[in-house]
């Protein structure tokens, strides 16, 4: 098993996918312009849509974590694919604000009347194998079902 496959099997992804009535070029601009990012994600510092570029974003602080999200542009394929690393958190935190070493991948594909936009936020360490959830209480299964619903499409 190679390193990528190993990583994949150890983590869970959040997937959100929607069709927007706008051309890929328009959506690309909103995804990759620092000024526009500030109007729907968070205003980035030091951002440029250039592979290798580091930038930060600031969110709500938690405990010893000041809320800084450290990002790095990993892939730029205009109007098609935009990938960046998303790291943050602090070891002292539980739940929100806990250490995070993840990757955000945006994929755009042209559809009849617009663009299908797919977000994959990957790298959440969770036991992937569903057998890990087998035999657990009904309450727990319900929680997992809710998460599946929120996360949308799961890849197995």
């Amino acid at each position, binding site marked *: 098993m190679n390193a990528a496959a190993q990583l994949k099997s150890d983590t869970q992804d959040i997937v959100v996918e929607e069709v927007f009535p706008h051309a890929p070029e328009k959506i690309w601009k909103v995804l990759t312009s620092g000024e526009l990012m500030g109007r*729907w994600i968070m205003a980035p510092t030091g951002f440029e849509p250039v592979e290798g570029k580091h930038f930060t974003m600031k969110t709500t602080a938690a405990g010893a974590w000041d809320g800084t999200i450290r990002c790095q542009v990993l892939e730029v394929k205009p109007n098609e694919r935009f990938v960046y690393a998303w790291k943050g958190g602090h070891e002292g935190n*539980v739940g929100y604000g806990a250490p995070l070493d993840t990757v955000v991948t945006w994929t755009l594909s042209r559809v009849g009347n617009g663009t299908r936009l797919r977000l994959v936020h990957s790298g959440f*360490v*969770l036991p992937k194998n569903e057998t890990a959830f087998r035999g657990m209480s009904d309450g727990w299964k319900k929680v997992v079902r809710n998460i599946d619903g929120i996360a949308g499409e799961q890849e197995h």
Partner: protein
Amino acid sequence: MIEAASINAVMRTLADPTRRAVFERIVSSDEITVIELTRGSGVTQGAISQHLKSLKQAGLVAERAQGRNVFYRAEPEGLAPLVDWMSHYAVFWRERFADLRNLLKEIDP
């Protein structure tokens, strides 16, 4: 409030493939002993005991002594911190998509 320090312990504990395999075997049985866990695992009983110790410390596994045997079972609550943490981001991105939709409507009517 979720028990302190548990998220790190849970992540570190499950990052080890052997330990994760042990945990999944415990989950798939109602209760299981060290001897049963060792059988067919390819590692020593001592190694399994060490993994069980880590799993217990992370709150993923509980034990019950009966006579000379100790039975291990999975503790579903142990995984809760990870789910809370992940669901925060699931909600976050849903909201960002809504904001993105509004912004696009505004700049590309």
